[in-house]
């Protein structure tokens, strides 16, 4: 693969990552959010595949395939299954921050990510490290979604968005984190989602709904 094609494909994948993150922040319908999340997982897999082709690493290629299965297949499937039990309520009805302000926040977070990543790019300038701010932005937007949404499922998507961003940074900074750690991380995300899915089910059994507004009993006042 020539260098120009590599850079173009890399930028394309990163653009898709950023766009899907903003779309998740923008849309309210949970079904749409899950679909966009699946597309983002695919974009992440493509990014890793491009890096694999560039470095001619079969191991990284296998990791890309694994990411596609986990983040574009298994996780969206689990989210959809959690949603199936939701019944009527399929919208994030009362986020703490409205859509316009959320998008503005996304812009500020992007600038923050670019400012913070300057030393990271300066350490080893290359097309891959130039894209680090995109990964950081996705992680920051994920954190923002996590703290401003109230539905259990939206919070879960926020956590996963953050994880996608962190994984992106991981692959862009270096491909050699070690297969064992990568495997541990992926397994961990899957387990966290499974745990939270079981908890949402239990929450629905005990409360009748998975609205986190109901989760306000444990506090000190």
């Amino acid at each position, binding site marked *: 693969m020539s260098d120009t094609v590599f850079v173009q494909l890399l930028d394309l994948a990163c653009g898709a990552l950023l766009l899907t993150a903003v779309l998740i922040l923008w849309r309210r319908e949970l079904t749409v959010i899950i679909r966009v999340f699946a597309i983002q997982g695919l974009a992440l897999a493509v990014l890793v595949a491009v890096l694999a082709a560039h470095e001619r690493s079969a191991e990284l290629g296998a990791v890309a395939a694994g990411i596609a299965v986990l983040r574009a297949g298994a996780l969206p499937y689990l989210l959809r299954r959690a949603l199936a039990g939701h019944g009527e309520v399929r919208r994030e009805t009362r986020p703490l921050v409205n859509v316009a302000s959320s998008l503005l926040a996304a812009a500020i977070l992007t600038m923050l990510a670019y400012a*913070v990543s*300057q*030393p*990271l790019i*300066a*350490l*080893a300038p290359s097309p891959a490290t130039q894209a680090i701010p995109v990964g950081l932005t996705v*992680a920051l937007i994920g*954190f923002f979604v*996590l703290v401003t949404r109230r539905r*259990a499922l939206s*919070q879960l998507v926020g*956590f996963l968005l*953050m*994880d996608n961003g*962190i994984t992106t*940074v*991981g692959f862009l*900074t*270096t491909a*050699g*984190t*070690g297969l*064992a*750690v990568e495997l*541990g*991380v992926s397994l*961990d995300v899957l*387990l*966290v989602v499974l*745990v*939270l899915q*079981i*908890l949402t089910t*239990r*929450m629905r059994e*005990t*409360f009748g709904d998975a609205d*986190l507004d109901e*989760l306000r*009993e*444990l506090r*000190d006042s």
Partner: protein
Amino acid sequence: MTTLLLLAPIAAPLLGALLYLGARWRPATRWASATGAALMLGAASTLAVDVATAGPRTALGGLLRADALTAFMLVVIGAVGLLATAATPAYLRAEIDAGRANPRTATRHSVLVQLFLAAMALAVLAANLGVLWVAVEATTIVTAFLVGQRRTRHAVEAAWKYVVICSTGIALALLGTFLLNYAAQHAPGTPGLDLAALTQHAAGLDPGVTRIAIALLIIGFGTKAGLAPLHAWLPDAHSQAPAPVSALMSGVLLAVAFYAVLRVKVIADVVLGTGFARALLLVMALVSVLLAASLLLAQRDYKRMLAYSSIEHLALVAFGAAVGGPLAYAAILLHILGHGLVKGVLFLAAGRILQTEATSRIDAVRGLAARQPLIAGCLGLGVLALIGLPPFSAFASELGIARTGFAGGLGWATAAVLAVVVVIAAALLGHTSRMLLGTAREGPGAAPAPRPIPATLGLTLVTGLIASAALGLTAGPLATLLHLAADTLTGMS
């Protein structure tokens, strides 16, 4: 032989988990978990002697590594683990009798607790920061179901908060790990994520990247250690989890997470000078201790009271780490062990009070000293130990932290922390004396008739208190280990 010694603390609880999976929880297997913890403590003691005489050991191709600090943490995990698992049969028996549990949930409880112990042992034995991260996150996953075990509205809510906040915090630590790895790749010697190699080659790491990485790692693992700003999961999870699990979470899980902070700080001190990690830890410690004090003053729930006290004690440990230096490190390690033992005793006693009085409200428990003298005595002595009265070990360790704080140029911060600690001590004494003294409520809705305390629980509580007092009088053979571990943290060995 070395391999076996390093593997034993992980393998013993794993075998215990397998045993419970196969044979289930029944009278014959009741003591298996305590046996596993005892084996762990035995292996930890042997390992301590070994590393004290022959230096650090590695096994499994460098995946596991034990130095004095590792051995000390394993002793803490083993000791508090033994305390909690020895009290578990009596706890589960009472839960089953009350209809809140059945043999199936008891089996699941036992399996998860064993996995929890194994994950904590792996975390302190891991030679690689990545493996350490995976082990700390694994503790979140296995304990999530323990926190939500009672399946009530409150328990499920606490479990949800616990998983979401801790996973988020630990995700920040993951980002920090990636960035540290990135810095390591471009440093001479390419140390990767191996902690010993990172410390050795730290001088070559890029300061700009390392600064971001260290901040993320300290905040991330600090979350799991119950430090502000992401401490909100702690009071909920500790108050809702079953008593033996609260004892383990408060006594060792927080300490294991803080162990990760300590390991990272060694690297930070070389790359960025001691100022950076000190400033970060100082802010987190001061905010945490103030927060704990303000929420303790008007606390109405005794399990939450103990949980906030854990935030305070971890804040003291973080403060000691910010001070730095061999004496401060020895003091915080002693504090970790002393806090683990006493908090274990207190959570187990609180669990028994919850079972007999059926309420976790402070004002609903009156005149405990008259009705259940042994439990009341253990609770009272435990609180005295917690606020740092001699002869208990918290006195020695808090004195050590304060002295090194004044000597280390942090006089104003030390004075402020000490003032808050006094306020907290007053609050704890006030709340506890209301529970222990006075006369019981009369008439309808009065507390149920007292039941005799199970002998094993009484023995466990008294043993824990005696151990804490003995530790306060003399660290004995642990003294050598403490000083070696402190030297590891200052980068001297």
